[in-house]
């Protein structure tokens, strides 16, 4: 930023206009591209939302759906029930939770400067899930208390991983996270085997993530969380592109480490909110960042990541619900089956940051 402002003053003596123009253009092109990417992704998310609403085993025409949602009712109680109580809350939950996962993943990968360091791989998602399951099965909590437990668990695991790995930005963090995540997974397994009935659907939701249980309560919770956290993220994420230069350069440019930690905290809270509602959707946070980045010519975009997350979760839910056999495959299984090979491919390309020892 600072370098670009003092460059034109020296250039003014000679060929002022072309240089200024060149700088302006160099700054404008990425911005335009980013706006275009965000628009394309927003349209994609909207299309995915509409597909989830209108198509499926019970289809609606667009005018019918609008009439039902606006409330100028058509006289078909079944249709009204299916749209308003099942499809709409489920699709909205997938959209909002996807935003949470995607934004959080993009922030993690940018601040930690490693595409592997997304909250699902460093154990934050599993930590949130384990805390939620403890609250659910051990203390019999319901609703918002479970969500609160997930938030506390996520922050706790984040602090533990950070403390054990000794500071952010190291490769150790990923390895420590992998270890802690596998321990958390077996805690979840254990709690479900201890529960009197082995409810496979519920267990799958907390192990791999599923949108199937969504209702209006879940939508309300996500809206509240997003309304509180998004402005905070917006304000703190403006420093992300500088954080990306590394801790030394960033503090030289006036972005303190404290600011980076605030962004991380917001990201942890976002992903925990997502987990509290739909479970730890496998690899969703991990996938969103790199996809948005690739579309945005290699530049970080948190909004882009969020929109990619929403689109992916909606698509995964649709595929799992309607397109595979006659079973309801949880969305987390779809994203896991697709996401992990992507990670392997990323590793094979050597695009996973500094080589670890």
């Amino acid at each position: 930023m600072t370098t670009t402002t003092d460059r034109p003053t020296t250039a003014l003596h000679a060929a002022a206009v072309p240089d200024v123009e060149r700088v302006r253009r160099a700054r404008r092109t990425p911005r335009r591209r980013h706006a275009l990417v965000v628009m394309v992704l927003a349209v994609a998310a909207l299309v995915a939302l509409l597909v989830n609403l209108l198509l499926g085993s019970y289809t609606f025409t667009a005018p019918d759906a609008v009439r039902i949602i606006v409330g100028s009712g058509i006289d078909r109680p079944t249709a009204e029930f299916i749209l308003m109580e099942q499809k709409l809350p489920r699709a909205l939950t997938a959209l909002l939770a996807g935003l949470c996962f995607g934004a959080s993943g993009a922030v993690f990968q940018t601040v930690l400067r490693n595409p592997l360091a997304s909250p699902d791989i460093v154990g934050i998602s599993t930590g949130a899930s384990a805390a939620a399951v403890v609250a659910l099965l051990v203390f019999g909590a319901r609703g918002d208390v479970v969500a609160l437990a997930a938030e506390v668990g996520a922050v706790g695991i984040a602090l533990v991983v950070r403390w054990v790995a000794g500071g952010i930005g190291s490769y150790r963090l990923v390895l420590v996270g992998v270890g802690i995540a596998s321990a958390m997974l077996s805690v979840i397994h254990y709690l479900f085997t201890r529960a009197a009935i082995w409810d496979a659907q519920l267990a799958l939701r907390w192990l791999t993530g599923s949108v199937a249980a969504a209702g209006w309560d879940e939508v309300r919770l996500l809206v509240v969380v997003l309304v509180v956290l998004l402005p905070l993220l917006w304000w703190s994420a403006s420093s992300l592109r500088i954080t990306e230069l590394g801790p030394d350069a960033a503090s030289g440019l006036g972005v303190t480490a404290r600011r980076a930690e605030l962004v991380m905290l917001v990201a942890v809270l976002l992903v925990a909110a997502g987990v509290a509602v739909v479970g730890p959707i496998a690899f969703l946070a991990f996938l969103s960042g790199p996809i948005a980045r690739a579309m945005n010519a290699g530049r970080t975009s948190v909004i882009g990541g969020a929109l990619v997350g929403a689109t992916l979760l909606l698509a995964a839910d649709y595929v799992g619900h309607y397109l595979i056999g006659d079973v309801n495959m949880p969305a987390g299984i779809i994203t896991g089956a697709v996401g992990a090979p992507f990670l392997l491919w990323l590793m094979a390309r050597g695009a996973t940051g500094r080589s670890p020892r």
Partner: protein
Amino acid sequence: MSPSTAVSSEAANPTDLPGRTATAGRARHAPRGTTTSAAICIAALVAAALASLCIGNRLVDPLALFDAQSPDHAVMDARMLRTMIGIVLGAAIGMAGACLQGLTRNPLADPALLGLNAGAAFAMVAGITYVGTTGIGGYIWFGFLGAGVAGLGVHLVASIGRGGATPGKLVIAGAALTAALTSWTTGILLTSRDTLDQIRSWQVASVAGKQTDAFVTVLPFIVVGVGLALASARILNALALGDELARGLGRSVARDRAVVGLAVMLLIGASVALAGPVAFLGLLVPHLVRRQVGGDYARILPLSAGWGAVLMVTADTVGRFVLPPGEVQVGVMTAVLGAPVFVAMIRRGKLGNL
């Protein structure tokens, strides 16, 4: 009864005495000596086995095993089988871990971390669902195949990028493969509705409630695997010097790796088929043993088997009473106890030492 013979054979192992005199000059590599370590291991195994027989939902006099009239006879029978399975599987997994660490020259190598367990479980579930295999004697072959392919795949992916197959990259590739395979396994189990309840048994290891004939079916494979692993101690010692030096010593590195890989495949495929995936045990045991007896695989391998059995049986026994009522499966116990040690190893940063 092969486990006990495998364990006791290490005390009678003729290589012990020459090995001891040879290492007398550099005693700091083997602070306690192999014989002492073996003796402690056998004593610990006997104690662990006895505890496993006595402790449970209620305390039982172990002599009831030999008294068919005793009301506790059935309990003792079940606990006997359970203890035997624990000993055999612990030995198999401990040995497989040592072999893997030697094979990849990687201190973080572990059958679970490298995705071998998940590969075996996935292949078996796929075999049961799509090929129609029934019985453990049938799907154990899929277990071998899955473990082998997963191990090769993880190593391949990790070795492509910059710097070759470093410990960290192997672990992350293994975690990715495990996640993918777990998704696919769960997906297959979901499509065949009646197997829904089985998800548990493919994702959390347990040595409880197994049938004797399943154990008898698996046992020969583990015996062969253990024999193969013990025979490959010299191979692993040569590989530890690096590929070039091993080749200079006249070894065919590719064939050697295949032999050790076959042993690991047999041990892991069989153990997953019988009990399910056990994490971190194969990672910890060889490190524990190496600290006692140094880097010679002729000593590491048998002791890894012994200590693997001790830890497995102990974890199973502790799991019976640690959180009453009900039991904690041995797979959960090893993961919860093993993860902090794994994390501590990473934190110490001593990863590149093999």
